[in-house]
């Protein structure tokens, strides 16, 4: 009996074909589409049903390239972080199911979009930001500003605050002049 079972937890559904565990080490992680897998929500959690599994399994979506591809290369993990399956493109699913997957990813990678920057103040190794975002006007703090930013293609800039929240500037070049001037130094 595993430790998890001893604690009264649910046993993970049997592993894939021939009882082989589908882990990241297994190069044969199945790529899934709406043709061979389905997703549904139960009690607020996402579940995946795969024909190879006897019963649905709780699934967690994970972006393989979170800064380059938001809707492609998505790993489906179990709650222990093992890869169960891989979604090449979110568009391989459609309708309500696709919406559900998009919603799950958006919740996990919740990143308000910065539209305007009112101020950035450097104080002793931290920078204090006041910005208008898609989630309203927000203030947040970055520790070591240079290290708390990642530039992606197309002028996209990701910011990570001290709490682990993420923010995104869709295109730094398209920011208004005043906002751009405030972050120019870090670019």
């Amino acid at each position, binding site marked *: 009996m*595993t*430790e*998890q079972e001893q*604690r*009264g*937890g*649910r046993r993970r559904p049997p592993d894939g074909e021939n009882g082989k565990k589908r882990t990241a080490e297994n190069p044969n992680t199945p790529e899934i589409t709406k043709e061979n897998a389905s997703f549904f929500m139960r*009690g*607020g*959690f996402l579940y995946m049903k795969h024909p190879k599994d006897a019963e649905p399994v*709780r699934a*967690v979506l994970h972006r393989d390239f*979170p800064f380059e591809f938001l809707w492609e290369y998505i790993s489906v993990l179990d*709650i*222990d*972080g*093992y890869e169960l399956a891989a979604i090449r493109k979110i568009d391989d699913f459609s309708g309500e199911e696709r919406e559900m997957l998009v*919603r799950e990813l*958006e*919740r*996990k*990678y*919740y*990143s308000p979009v910065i539209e305007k920057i009112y101020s950035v*103040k450097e*104080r*002793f*190794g*931290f920078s*204090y930001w006041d910005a208008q975002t898609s*989630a309203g006007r927000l203030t947040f*703090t970055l*520790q*070591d500003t*240079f*290290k708390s930013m990642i530039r992606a293609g197309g002028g996209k800039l990701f910011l990570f*605050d*001290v*709490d*682990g*929240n*993420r923010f995104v500037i869709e295109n730094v070049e398209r920011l208004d002049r005043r906002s751009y001037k405030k972050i120019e*130094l*870090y670019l």
Partner: protein
Amino acid sequence: MNLFEIDKIPDEIYAVLTEKGIPKEEILLAAYCDRDRSHTPCDTYLAATQKELAVLTGTFSRETDLRKKRTSRIWNESEYTVYSLEKLHDFKIEELISSARFTATDENGEPVFLAAMTNYCRTSMIVFKKYLDKIARDGSFVVDADDDPKSNRCPKCGARYPEKNRKICPKCMEKGKLFRRIAQFFLRYRLYLFLSLVSLVGMTALSIFASYSSSGFFYSEILDESGSFYGMIAFVLFLVIGAKLLTTLSTIVNNYVTSVIAAKVNFDLKKTIFGAIERLSLGFFTSRQTGGLMTQLNNDSNTIYDFFCNILPHFIVNVVKVAVLIILLFIIDPVLALLSLSVIPVSLITMRISHAKNRKLHAKRYSSQRSMTSFLADELSGMRVVKAFSKEDEEIARFDVRSRRLADADIRRGVFNTFFSPLSGFLLYTFGNLVALGFGGWFVIQGRIDYADLMMFTTYTNMIYAPLFFFSEMSEMTADCSNSLQRLFEIMDSQPEVCEAAQPVHCDTFRGDVRFDGVSFSYIKNHKVIDNVSFEIEAGKTLGIVGHTGAGKSTLANLLIRLYDPESGAVYIDGMDIKKLAFADLYRNIAIVSQETYLFMGTILENIRYARPDASYDEVIAAARAAGAHDFIVKLPDAYDTKIGFGYKDLSGGERQRLSIARAILRNPKILILDEATAAMDTETERKIQNALQVLIQGKTTIMIAHRLSTLRDADSLIVIENGRVAERGTHEELMARDGVYHKLYTLQIEALKNAGIA
């Protein structure tokens, strides 16, 4: 028991809960989340009583009563659920990327989604979960001082301190406070500082006097027939020589004081900083870029020294100098003084603008420099890979981009300074002189002042400009110093995350029973490395820990030697929580032999004796023999006195490892941790070291962490760690019979060895 309010809960919410049968008096714990269960932004309040957990979701809206002209807050409830704590267990904060959810498991083993939040609320919810666990288990709790929200928030702005262990709000920190604090440090040099100041004042007074005697005084008193010293040129020469001699004397005193104080202050500052660094826990170093830490601190101590021992005295002297010169100018002619000084504000404003722009250019240059330096550090350490993939051209191109950016920043800054500095100098000097000469000349013709006065006046106005330039740069120098001070205090104020108990329990010798009880730990947010791990080892027995790379095996060792403390759960030795044990006793009784061997610069003897400096030569040799190190040591020309370390004899991995085993043998601990001790060895060396290890582990409680499972076969028991949890436990035979993870790993390794022709 009092209510522990982790976040501020509005009175309206307590009223709603009371209506629903949960009066405030019964609530033990309350917190706030900023999402509902579908992750839509709204207000979710969690309240726990001894038996229940209530989750209330909704939003506040404002309603204005136009008749009474009053606006009130209305609570619009969207969801309310009450859970019986008896039916829930295994509460968890499931950390996603920038959000998290609070979950539990019900009596049927089904997951229950309790609440969702963004990372803003996660810290509070981790505290909520901690105390909810205690309520569910014990029915009560005592609040740790560290969890008190007041102690974690800035009293001024209310924001949470960005670093948990450093109760400082950078946003509200005053520069003045930093300077006042460091002033205490400099008080011990007050005699030197006083001497420096006196010599500087002397130099300044003498320079004013020398200018006076060679200009105004020379014309009006020596050359003018009506002067008191008419024709006494030798007298004025004597005065000038005297003034010069005294200036030289003051300069010598000043230079002497400066050189003495510079060395002393730098020494003391570095000593203070290094002392503070050594005191800190390992977590401090892993959370910061430590590569350049000492270099940075070296620069910082120079900046601080320079500010307090050089800039500050000059500032004081310049203030006095400007004040004296202004008085002298007003004595000569108040109107002319006002007219010439009127140029100063304009020039100062220009200088301020110039400095602001310069600061920006400097910051840009700094960021380019930083980018290039980190690129270079990275590149040089990875040169083997670059060569192996023949990526030299690409890397040169990458370097070019960064180097060009730095060159561009340099050019922009250089060009700006080329134009602006002379321009602001021109404004101040030329305009100041023009005003003085123009109006002064006119005043001489009018007979308002004489020629000697005009000469004195122009000399004094020229003397005033240098201090003004100095003042305009002062803010930049102060900013530099305050940044350095902040970094200095950051180190000095950092509280070690792992602290010895206020009244530690002393225990000379351990029996050696080790117990991990529900231990969880994470190095970084969103990633639990150890999750609710429990196991026990009886004194004198051996436990093998097995698992994939990154499963959390070494972290367990780090927790046992208190390099880190668990986030939840506890580690016990002989039934005593290791947090209560005195550091010295803990470290004396535990030794670790890991893959990473640390040998410092010194002789082999000193390195082995590091474990026990009072060990005799015989004991050192015996330990080296037992570790299988003696043979290679005696082959060295200087044997035990061979210097090793940077720039000296380079030992192989196996030799280094055997020295570290000798160290551990010399220490003779009750508990021994072998963390992948032979992982990097070839089979021959590994066999030798294994023999040494067998000697070492006799009669000791041993934790063996190994990737090669064959080395763990003889362990009394084994645990398999997967994803930070204990997946399996038992003896080798039991685990092989179970056909689980261990069986799979073992079979794979044996197959691999067979294929390689080893097994």
